[in-house]
């Protein structure tokens, strides 16, 4: 009996030691350079499988007016701390223009009036934040593919990079940026939205123009758009991961 009691105590101690080593090991692994990329391989798997299941025309659910959130939550930047942006915002973005460049045949400069004159799409969709909450809003804007049709991307253009007006940190060149690939860029629900719930986009939600990519999480949907750049790779763009949060360890493919 005493041997069995001793063995039991040994086993309990073993379980406790194993548990704390396991947890400490997980913490240690999170901070190594080699392990997180192994975990990140799941992102590629998720993207491959989800892209296989959601062929290009698969559409995000669209809701009705009855489902609208009374107040559409603003997250991240609510007011860009940038002198140029603030002065444009005071002038109702009259002098603002979206620049489209990079790997395109014809670079564009589109004012708000130009964008509003282009074909538009209105969609009531659900915004899912990576934090876990959702809000439903009615967005009106220009399908990105209409803009791309005018700019005519070159054959080697693989990604669309969005440059924003909101600095995220102190110092130069910390403005928010994001990117999507051509699959999402040409999706019918991918729009450059200038209206929210029938009114011009408020500043906390990204005035004067924000991106909507309805089959991905909220951080992909860059606010305060200033420029669009078509690129072949992210190598020369800041952290090289294709987005502000991506450079901080979030997935580039935010479909889950």
């Amino acid at each position, binding site marked *: 009996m005493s041997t069995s009691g001793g*063995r039991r105590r040994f086993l309990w101690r073993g379980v406790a030691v194993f548990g704390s080593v396991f947890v400490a090991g997980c913490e240690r692994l999170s901070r190594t350079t080699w392990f*997180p990329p192994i975990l990140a391989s799941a992102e590629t798997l998720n993207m491959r499988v989800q892209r296989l299941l*959601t062929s290009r025309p698969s559409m995000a*659910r669209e809701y009705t007016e009855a489902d609208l959130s009374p107040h*559409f939550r603003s997250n991240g930047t609510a007011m860009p701390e940038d002198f140029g942006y603030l002065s444009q915002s005071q002038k109702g973005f009259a002098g603002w223009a979206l620049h489209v460049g990079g790997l395109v045949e014809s670079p564009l400069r589109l004012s708000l009036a130009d964008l509003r004159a282009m074909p538009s799409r209105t969609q009531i969709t659900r915004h899912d934040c990576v934090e876990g909450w959702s809000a439903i809003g009615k967005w009106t804007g220009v399908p990105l593919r209409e803009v791309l049709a005018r700019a005519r991307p070159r054959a080697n253009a693989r990604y669309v990079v969005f440059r924003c007006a909101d600095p995220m940190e102190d110092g130069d060149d910390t403005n928010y940026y994001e990117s999507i690939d051509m699959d999402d860029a040409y999706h019918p629900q991918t729009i450059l939205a200038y209206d929210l719930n029938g009114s011009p986009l408020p500043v906390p939600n990204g005035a004067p123009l924000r991106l909507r990519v309805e089959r991905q999480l909220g951080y992909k949907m860059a606010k305060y758009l200033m420029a669009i750049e078509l690129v072949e790779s992210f190598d020369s763009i800041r952290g090289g991961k294709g987005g502000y949060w991506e450079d901080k360890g979030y997935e580039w493919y935010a479909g889950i």
Partner: protein
Amino acid sequence: MALPANDAPHTAVYKRHSLAVRVMHWINVIAVVVLVMSGLQIFNAHPALYWGKSSYTGAGPILALDPFPGWITLPDTQWLAMGRRWHLFFAWVLVLNGAAYVLYSIVSRHLSRDLWPSREDVRSIGSSIADHLRLRHPTGKAALRYNVLQKLAYVVIVFGVFPFLVLMGLGLSPSVDSIVPGWVDVFGGRQSVRTLHFIAGAIIVAFAAVHLFEVVVTGLVNNIRSMITGRYRIPGEKSP
């Protein structure tokens, strides 16, 4: 079936769990621990639960909690990006391991032989409940087989709770939602799905707690040995 006992003369040693079941059990243990801890990390990014299509419907959350403490989350500080990395990787481990287990259970007849309650099992539910409450457990050769409550718990967890948990997890993905637009609304909407994912996780944790309790009260050493080496000892019985 019986292996020769090599130490105690009056102890018979039986093979209780197959190698496949043992390996898949421990993979599952690791996956569940990582998924629960990283899941709480993700939950802490917005520690409130809602019912409906969105979080902002005019009605408040159905449950707003304080964030879970660091010792129970992975990583142990607020680090959503790393929590998601762990969670989304081990979700695949759980699903592939679980699918392998289900396939194995059907093909090897582990399901029909050991897991699916027989008619006699169903008739003995009442007495089995009474036995469990009095912590009276099967001894001798009866301990080699799952009892009826054990069978029911395993079948419900493996074929009910885990698939539901995974489905609710997939329902959180805006991309998976778009495969059949609106399918998450069958469960009340995306925020309901998030709440159900959390509840299913809580059921798994509750199951694990009861499971561990039963492992302890029915012979910790013997049980753990049988899940590692496969060998289970029945004292007071001569080796056949």
